[in-house]
């Protein structure tokens, strides 16, 4: 592509897409104050991660075998409290 052709394409581009921010005009501003949204994002992220990890655990542990195993362990610990240290040892 020659320099002339490149210049022509550049010119076409300038005509098809005008400048969003003209030098002569003041810089554009957001329509709203964005700081509350940034704060919300900063505050919300850890909480969202916690919820996601909890939901992930529930999803992973929702097979019937996992729940049956959990119920069995609960029954054994209630019936034989002395077995708790043994469970803790193997955790």
């Amino acid at each position: 592509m020659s320099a002339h052709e490149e210049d022509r394409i550049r010119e076409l581009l300038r005509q098809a897409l005008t400048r969003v921010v003209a030098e002569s005009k003041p810089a554009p501003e957001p329509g709203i104050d964005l700081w509350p949204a940034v704060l919300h994002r900063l505050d919300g992220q850890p909480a969202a991660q916690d919820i996601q990890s909890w939901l992930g655990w529930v999803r992973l542990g929702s097979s019937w075998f996992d729940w049956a195993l959990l119920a069995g362990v609960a029954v054994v610990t209630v019936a034989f409290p002395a077995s708790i240290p043994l469970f803790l040892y193997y955790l």
Partner: protein
Amino acid sequence: MGTWPNAAMVDEAGLLDRFRQGDVDAFEELFRLHQRAVYGWVLRIVRNPAAAEDLTVETFWRIYQARGRFEASRTFEPWARRIATHAALDWLRVQRPESELTAELLSAQSRSTADPGVTAEIRVKTWQAFMRLPPRLRVAAILAVVEEQPHKEVAEALGISVTAVKLRVFRACRLLRKDLERQGITP
């Protein structure tokens, strides 16, 4: 980008130090100083005010997350611009070209130009061909050609060399010419 209002007037050294330590008040001060410039920069790339607002929030969130990697020897502005550019690029990558039939297309159809040889049809086809370019070429072309930003600033924002920016603009022009030729338009 040109001007980052107020930024030059404020001694940012202490502010940046507090920001690096995770001080939210210092971060808010930085945000107030630079949000307009970040918004303007992103708007130049995505050309959609609502998306630019979302991406400004995303940029400052990324800035806060990356505060530990900020080098004290650097200035905040180019660093923020680079993060903003990458956030905008990520956004462009997930947008479908047909979803961007915005007011800009209508404007291209109706715009009266200095060159009477360029019809509304050519402008619209150029716009459509431009939207089909890979995002990284689009960003280089839009910043360097349409928004007329200095190549050095574009290079810093994209994290590439000035030569690479020129190469991307050249490739964008070449692909545009081929696309227009396929549509029967000889630029």
